[in-house]
């Protein structure tokens, strides 16, 4: 079956606008994805009909919204195949999910002299929380080296693991290079020594099927806004056994069972980790986004995006002077590159003027950029609504950039 690209594009209102008198090409999907009308409608519907504060209200609206909220939790658990829905915690995004684990797991399980392992490919959000935790606890942070192709150096990884390793936190997909990391292998190895593994799935969930039971990861984090859902909503999946042992993170609201002047008892999972009024709107939107992905079919999405990647790699790689950064064997639909010695900022300004949204810079992964010895990259990241014609436009823009800075 041919991928119904025209039908899909119609569902995304943002795409149908002119920027500098040209039709917008949106290639900044790794930063955030656009939203289909179904997600926008879910929000409109929520605020026009169901809006209220959930869980403790006895009244009709509260009952209805609570049910939808909890049904979405179940939908999320089937989306990533989690064993049970109380292992799904709603957060505001990947960054918060990781901070929650670093803080709460850290309080319970990390002490002086311990070690934490992350990789050189991490986004700051899966880097700095562990760095600061290790500083505070006088623990040591170790880095899995990255090969010139942008892959994990697995031999070095195995040597890094020691009796002192308390947790490993790695990204599923690199947001700078698109590399799909061998997380299953990392997890299998780590579990031999009973070391839990957190996976940062921010760049994975919209591109490929994720099965947390198959991965057997201990934590999995992702953001709604990078998978066609609204901003301000994210997910932390965690294994019950670990979540049960961890102290709560933020305090107040639904996460509390009883408060006395001298102490407080906490609610059960998942509520223990959901402080304050939850983002019910975001949850409604997330549900619509998951439906959208399911209806389109994640395998169809993967196949379409793979073709886009192949085409872009060929098309850009063919332009003299273009250097592709990151050439891992397994990649998602993201391409980082440089044009000769042209500074990425310069290229970005011109590409923008041609109506194409790409991202330039260090992509919140300065340590990796440092390793790669580049001043940043130009990154075009594709989503299911992108087309081959749009990639042609990017190639034209790249040639234009070359000419202007020749």
């Amino acid at each position, binding site marked *: 079956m041919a991928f119904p690209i025209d039908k899909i594009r119609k569902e995304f209102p943002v795409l149908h606008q002119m920027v500098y008198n040209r039709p917008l090409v949106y290639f900044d999907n790794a930063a955030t994805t656009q939203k289909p009308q179904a997600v926008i409608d879910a929000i409109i519907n929520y605020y026009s009909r169901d809006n209220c504060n959930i*869980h*403790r209200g006895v009244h009709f609206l509260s*009952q209805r919204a*609570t*049910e939808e909220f*909890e049904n979405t939790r179940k939908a999320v658990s089937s989306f990533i195949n989690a064993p049970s829905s109380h292992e799904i915690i709603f957060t505001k995004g990947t960054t918060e999910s990781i901070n929650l684990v670093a803080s709460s797991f850290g309080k319970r399980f990390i002490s002086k002299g311990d070690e934490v392992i992350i990789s050189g490919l991490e986004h700051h959000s899966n880097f700095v929380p562990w760095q600061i935790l290790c500083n505070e606890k006088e623990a040591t942070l170790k880095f899995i080296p990255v090969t010139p192709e942008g892959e994990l150096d697995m031999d070095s990884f195995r040597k890094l693991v020691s009796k002192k390793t308390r947790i490993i936190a790695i990204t599923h997909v690199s947001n700078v290079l698109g590399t799909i990391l061998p997380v299953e292998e990392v997890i299998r190895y780590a579990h031999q020594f009973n070391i839990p593994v957190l996976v940062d799935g921010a760049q994975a969930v919209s591109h490929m099927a994720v099965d947390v039971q198959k991965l057997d990861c201990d934590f999995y984090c992702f953001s709604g806004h990078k998978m066609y859902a609204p901003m301000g909503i994210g997910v932390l999946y965690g294994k019950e056994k670990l979540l049960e042992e961890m102290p709560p993170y933020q305090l107040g609201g639904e996460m509390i069972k009883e408060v006395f002047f001298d102490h407080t008892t906490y609610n059960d999972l998942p509520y223990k980790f959901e402080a304050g009024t939850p983002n019910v709107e975001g949850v409604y939107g997330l549900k619509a986004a998951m439906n959208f992905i399911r209806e389109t079919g994640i395998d169809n999405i993967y196949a379409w995006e793979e073709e886009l990647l192949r085409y872009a790699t060929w098309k850009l790689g063919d332009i003299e002077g273009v250097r592709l950064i990151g050439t891992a064997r397994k990649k998602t639909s993201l391409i980082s590159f440089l044009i000769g010695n042209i500074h990425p900022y310069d290229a970005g300004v011109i590409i923008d003027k041609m109506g194409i949204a790409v991202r330039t810079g260090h992509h919140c992964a300065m340590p990796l950029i440092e390793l790669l010895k580049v001043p940043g990259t130009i990154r075009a990241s594709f989503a299911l609504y992108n087309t081959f014609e749009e990639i042609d436009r990017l190639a034209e823009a790249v040639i234009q950039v070359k000419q202007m800075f020749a």
Partner: protein
Amino acid sequence: MTISEIENQIVTEFSFFEDWMDKYNFIIEMGKSLPLIDNRFKTDQYLITGCQSQVWLYADYRDGKVVFTADSDAIITKGIVHLLIRVLSNQTPEDIIRSEMQFIDVIGLKEHLSPTRSNGLVSMIKQMKLYAMAYKIKS
């Protein structure tokens, strides 16, 4: 009577009510007439806390059957507790464990058993089944 016979009986009783007010008046009456739990058991040990209303539940085992008594501080909760006890008390552990209590839905009280109602009823049913399981293992 078996559990499903009692369920049917309750469904029939409720079928006479034309509107929610009659239905709730009936539940309130059921609440008032709930055979009270022995005061000895109205302690923290037998307390099930919902965040708004509380339920005390005690279970005895006589002649192969589990006998429940209960109380609540809210009358409507108590009324529904009474219905649950009518259905599940004096039944065998096996039957209690197997029961699905569809009647709650049929008579239109489903929302009271939503995990979010914070009236303790969901935990109460869980607790009733746990008692049944415990007695099953014991016997």
